[in-house]
């Protein structure tokens, strides 16, 4: 049984994280994974495509939005979820990413300003081969400057 000190974080929302997505960030992201898709970097190809401009690879929402998820859980190192988990015996220093789910509604383009908001929707304990594990489920929505929902993500974080 997880203590209330931990479960009280279920339903907690993080602050909104806002990022302007620029062409350079998209290019660096595509280069990092070695993805030469011309929709991400070739202006002329992208202009003549059905998108009419460069787009970001699905799953890229800019750089700072990455932190929306951990913001909901770990913004305050002393009184946040991290501290509560340590008190409950989950002392491994590294949060592990156990899985992700996405639903994509609209492409992301350079110049878009995206607002990401995360909420912790569940915290569950499980017995694994190597001892007790706790899974932290976070849901994040990404909304662009026109107020359109661009994507929804569900992340599964694991601590031991």
């Amino acid at each position: 049984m997880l203590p209330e000190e931990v479960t009280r974080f279920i339903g907690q929302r993080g602050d909104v994280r806002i990022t302007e997505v620029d062409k350079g960030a998209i290019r660096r992201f595509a280069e990092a994974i070695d993805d030469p898709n011309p929709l991400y970097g070739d202006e002329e190809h992208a202009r003549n495509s059905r998108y009419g401009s460069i787009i970001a690879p699905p799953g890229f929402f800019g750089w700072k939005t990455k932190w929306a998820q951990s913001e909901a859980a770990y913004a305050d190192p002393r009184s946040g979820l991290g501290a509560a988990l340590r008190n409950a015996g989950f002392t491994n220093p590294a949060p592990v990413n156990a899985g992700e789910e996405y639903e994509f509604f609209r492409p992301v383009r350079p110049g878009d300003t995206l607002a990401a908001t995360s909420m912790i929707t569940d915290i569950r304990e499980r017995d694994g081969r190597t001892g007790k594990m706790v899974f932290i489920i976070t849901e994040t929505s990404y909304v662009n400057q026109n107020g359109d929902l661009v994507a929804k993500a569900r992340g599964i974080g694991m601590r031991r």
Partner: protein
Amino acid sequence: MAKQLFWEDVEVDSEVTPLPKVATRQMMVKWAGASGDFNPLHYDDSFAEASGVGKPIVHGALKRAWLIQLMTDWIGDQGTLKKFACQYRAMDYPRLMKTTSEPHEGETWWCKGKVTKKYVEGDEHLVDCEIGVENGKGEVTTPGTATVILPSRG
């Protein structure tokens, strides 16, 4: 550029064109900078050791990005990735670098997939796939699923 794939070209059990990837420490450094993930688990030997994983491990989200490329390469410019999920079941360890641009000999990872369902919903021609990243021993460390919209010849 590969020829555009159409919904009519695909059947249940059709193979998604496999995509090979080589994870290196260098790629992980680039990924950290590009994605904003600075968890030392992925670049600091002593931190990785203290965390119980031995050595720095490949970012889950980097494997996610590979699997997304597997799908976007296959569906082409006219296809749309609608849903995607993956689970990080086992760790992967990158190759180290031999020169500033060449990795040492070692593992190659293969992103693979196959069609599990083909259907129409409203005006969307959809295909569900089972996907995964396979390590050099042929073990699937990162299984997942994807739903794509493909153009139809009508």
